């Protein structure tokens, strides 16, 4: 193993992934505004650049050049670090998701993922819960009753919806043992080995879990109809009350990158990742299929936002604990029996 494979390739891969995710965030906001506009028979942004394509850049410049205002009563360092703490987990979670098969460039075999962690699912669950820290610290450091209440609510929501999500992921790991003999936690293995081997029954049973997992992801990424962290109408603006300018934008950046990551996870688990027609002959096509599938799932997020009204907080909690949680436990039990019998 020379230095190219040890240092250069991972560095370049990480850099490309971060740039793509940040650009992806920018154009996710554009995609959302355009698609949402079409769903409500409007045109959407079309002033900045052709078809409004420069709108994300205009928004970014506006956020950056706004006055950097730090209220006097906040805990300054935690206040400044909190948006970054919310953002980083969303970025880091992408590391274990394979976005394409191995490709060969200049004699080096490059795998299109940052790391094949053999505890991929566990890693995703762990990273997802770290994102809650950013929210809690933002609320606490703001030194404001609205903020701390909003932060605690948000944290409770995120932690609650992680339970059914985790149980569904456990079921999926159990299901992988149908193909590999032993259940695998690796997402790379899931796409490369398990996905091509899935039987029809396996696919169908997996699809039963998709709605539950999708609802968990909506709540986990605080998307509508579970966008209670925004708290527009009951707690001023929740945990981000005291934030403005680019610091406020960072929270939304975190949310949108979280959505992209969640879509990537769903594509990997339910839609076969980068698998698609003609990938065997032209491996780079896998990236195309992956991106196309992610864009479709993102469209689903936006479509739900346009259609479903926001839920109340008590509805949110009772739905998670009284419905989603038991349902996912039942799903896990049936999966276990199913796996044991075959």
């Amino acid at each position, binding site marked *: 193993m020379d230095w190219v494979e040890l240092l250069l390739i991972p560095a370049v891969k990480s850099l490309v992934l971060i740039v793509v995710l940040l650009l992806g965030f920018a154009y996710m906001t554009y995609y959302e505004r355009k698609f949402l506009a*079409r769903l*409500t028979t*409007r*045109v959407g942004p079309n002033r900045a650049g052709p078809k409004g394509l420069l709108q994300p850049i205009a928004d970014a410049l506006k956020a950056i050049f706004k006055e950097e205002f730090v209220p006097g009563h906040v805990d300054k360092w935690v206040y400044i670090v909190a948006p970054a703490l919310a953002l980083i987990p969303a970025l880091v979670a992408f590391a274990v998701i394979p976005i394409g098969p191995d490709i060969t460039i200049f004699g080096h075999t490059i795998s299109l993922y940052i790391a094949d962690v053999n505890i991929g699912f566990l890693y995703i669950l762990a990273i997802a819960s770290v994102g809650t820290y950013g929210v809690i610290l933002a609320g606490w450091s703001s030194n404001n009753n609205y903020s701390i209440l909003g932060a605690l609510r948000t944290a409770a929501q995120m932690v609650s919806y992680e339970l059914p999500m985790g149980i569904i992921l456990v079921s999926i790991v159990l299901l992988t043992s149908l193909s590999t003999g032993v259940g695998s936690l690796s997402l790379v293995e899931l796409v490369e080995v398990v996905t091509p081997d899935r039987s029809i029954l396996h696919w169908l049973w997996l699809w039963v879990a998709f709605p539950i997992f999708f609802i968990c992801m909506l709540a986990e990424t605080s998307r509508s109809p579970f966008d209670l962290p925004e708290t527009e109408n009951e707690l001023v603006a929740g945990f981000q009350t005291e934030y403005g300018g680019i610091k406020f934008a960072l929270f939304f950046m975190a949310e949108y990158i979280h959505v992209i990551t969640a879509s990537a996870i769903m594509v990997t688990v339910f839609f076969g990742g980068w698998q698609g027609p003609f990938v065997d002959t032209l491996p780079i096509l896998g990236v195309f299929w992956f991106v196309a599938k992610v864009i479709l799932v993102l469209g689903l997020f936006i*479509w739900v936002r346009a259609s*479903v009204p926001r839920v109340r907080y008590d509805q949110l909690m009772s739905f998670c604990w*009284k*419905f989603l949680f*038991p349902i996912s436990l039942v799903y896990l039990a049936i999966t276990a029996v199913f796996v044991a019998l075959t």
Partner: protein
Amino acid sequence: MMSGLGDVVKGAAQIAQAMGVTLKYATRRPVTLEYPEEPMAVFPRYRGQHMLRRYDNGLERCIGCCLCEAACPTGAILVEAAENDPGNPRSPGERYAKTYEVNLLRCVFCGDCEIACPTEAIVLTQSVPMPQRNRANFILTQDVLLEPKDANLVIRPDS
């Protein structure tokens, strides 16, 4: 929990229905008006920004009678009249409007000035008053008011 199962099915059906509705609207043409670039349809009786008209020979119709100023319910119009120079008249009458200003911030677009005007000099056009960056620009002076360019408008046929 079992009693809630029917509600769950019903709720899921309702969400599916709602999502169908939004998807149906996605195929429709947007209703957004791209006003300055594309023509906007207004009714023929729509009252927009003011215009001071001229006669065909170039003389101003306004003779500085101040009737519009008197008729204006909000006092948005200011007219100062002056005697015409007989050799080089600005209006066919004895007097002309030295200053003619309309304050758009006060105007209620009632059209009373139009009715009061004996020479049909002041009229309300169909053009929509454009947004301004400066409050001073909302006071329309004579050079703005005298026969401004037509905005990108069409008259609605269904009136």
